[in-house]
């Protein structure tokens, strides 16, 4: 069926060139700080100097940490803003404390509910979280409203009269979503918690998948209940091994603990950030140079993690690298091909 094997594979640089723009509302991963996120997409945003972002991250990740550190973010809306076991997110922290990034706080459930409201096209969603706390009463986007009225207006349940918070929907201009497995048409399988990737894929105006591995569509027909992001929602698919590095992708690779710490430490200062970009962002614009930078030994170690068995049922459908490259080449920008 030509309908369902439409090839949407494009190179990472093309994806940023075609779909990203300065000033956009940008959402990613819908991830947690140590797991799935399309960090590779953020690295390319930095390489192409896309800035003035309004970042919508369900929770902070090393991507948001990096984007804040390099000054690419003007506004952010977030639930959790740390790095869990790795401590505070130094890049984000620095930029918030300096006032460079205006950060609007919500709880993690509130962010999920707002993405759901965006997905369902509800003008608001009701919830009882956040009300009564400063998450409701303080708004960084409306700093002179106290208590804030425009952030989470209080409404009454028409059945009981009970007070509720009304949460505004999120509809980011672009979502770059990390998945372990995608087919060339844009059907995606997630392994590990979805966190809010399902809701985000429906809430965003445009969705790009960044996939660790590309599989044949036959894999999706064998496991259609796993395909929680169907192709009809997806504009483009990027193949990028170790997309989430140094974070983890359950089933495919473990988190790189040493680099998690190194990266966060470097993002703690302007000089460190400059050095991080020079060493780990600028020279890693191609899959080959990126993987070289991570290092063969590290790659082997991270790939042999305790969740590797989760990938086993799908391995037989993994497309050979050469096939993926061919599919990608068929969609590559002409300008890109001329330049190469």
């Amino acid at each position, binding site marked *: 069926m030509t309908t369902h094997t439409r090839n949407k594979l494009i190179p990472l640089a093309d994806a940023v060139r075609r779909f990203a723009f300065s000033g956009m509302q940008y959402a990613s991963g819908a991830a947690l700080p140590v797991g799935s996120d399309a960090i590779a997409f953020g690295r390319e945003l930095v390489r192409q100097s896309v800035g003035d972002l309004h970042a919508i991250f369900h929770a902070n990740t090393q991507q948001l940490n990096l984007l804040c550190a390099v000054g690419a973010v003007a506004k952010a809306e977030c639930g959790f803003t740390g790095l869990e076991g790795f401590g505070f997110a130094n890049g984000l922290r620095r930029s918030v404390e300096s006032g460079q990034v205006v950060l609007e706080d919500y709880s993690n459930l509130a962010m999920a509910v707002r993405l759901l409201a965006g997905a369902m096209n509800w003008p608001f969603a009701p919830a009882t979280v956040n009300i009564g*706390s400063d998450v409701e009463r303080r708004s960084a986007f409306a700093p002179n409203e106290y208590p804030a009225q425009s952030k989470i207006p209080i409404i009454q349940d028409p059945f009981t009269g009970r007070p509720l918070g009304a949460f505004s929907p999120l509809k980011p201009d672009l979502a770059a979503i990390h998945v372990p497995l995608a087919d060339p048409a844009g059907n995606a399988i997630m392994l590990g918690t979805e966190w809010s990737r399902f809701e985000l894929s429906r809430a965003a105006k445009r969705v790009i998948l960044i996939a660790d591995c590309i599989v044949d569509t036959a894999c999706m027909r064998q496991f259609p209940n796993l395909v929680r992001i169907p192709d009809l929602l997806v504009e483009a698919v990027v193949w990028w091994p170790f997309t989430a590095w140094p974070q983890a992708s359950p089933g495919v690779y473990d*988190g790189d603990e040493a680099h998690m710490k190194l990266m966060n430490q470097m993002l703690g200062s302007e000089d460190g950030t400059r050095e991080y970009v020079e060493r780990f962002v600028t020279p890693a614009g191609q899959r080959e140079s990126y993987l070289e930078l991570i290092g063969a030994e590290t790659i082997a170690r991270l790939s042999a993690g305790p969740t590797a068995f989760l990938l086993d049922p799908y391995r037989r459908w993994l497309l050979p690298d050469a096939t993926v490259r061919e599919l990608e080449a068929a969609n590559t920008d002409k300008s890109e091909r001329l330049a190469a």
Partner: protein
Amino acid sequence: MNYTRQEMMAIATGREIRDGELAIFGVGLSMLAGFFAIAHHAPNVRAMTEGGIYGATPIGGLPWGIECNRISANATSFTSGLDALGCLVASGRCDIGIIGAAQVDRFGNVNTTGIWGGEIGAHYGPPKTRLTGSGGANDIAVGCKRYLIMASHEKKRFVERVDYISSPGYLDGGNARAAYGFVGGGPSAIITTLGILRPDLLSKEFFLEAYFAFSSVDEILADTGWNLRVSPTVSIVAEPSDAELLALRSVDVTGMLRRAA
């Protein structure tokens, strides 16, 4: 003393968890406390994370986060944040949660958002020190039938009034929570590095219920930033039994709690 102060805190927390409960744990200390309880006295606890990971036990050391592969390696179900925090926590299904605190006040309100150095005032500007935000803690504080607060007992953290309420305890005390119709009952204890605080039944102000064997009432009063009331029946928390230490150390395989003593 054949145990560390951190181990005492984890065990005291774990003792609050009852068999069969639906429990939500964060990373680090709270997860150790929870899995200690499962290993020791509550084998039928149904543990979950706010990421929507069910039926999992961490392997190979303490997870770095709730989406870490160490907790994803043997789950029976993965869903989503909306499911975990919405359908299971905000719904009122979850019996117990554990959250941390950078600041906590006399009514159990928790700040994990930022340090402004006192009142923020009418204009909301950047904090002197940005912390981690609410994350799922606000949702746990509002939705779980009861929850525990774990905090390092220091004067700068135990304050009269937190700079910013990230997660509501009893707000201004008394019936203040009732105005919001929260399904959750509020914090049932603050477990500190020195002892255990409980809320007064009516005023909801936290008082000192018990202190650890290595601490004292005086030490705790000196390290608390408000005029902490002490229970007339204040007592020493039972020291860890051999069985408890054995269970805890079987969970704390990398010895995190022993190093951090």
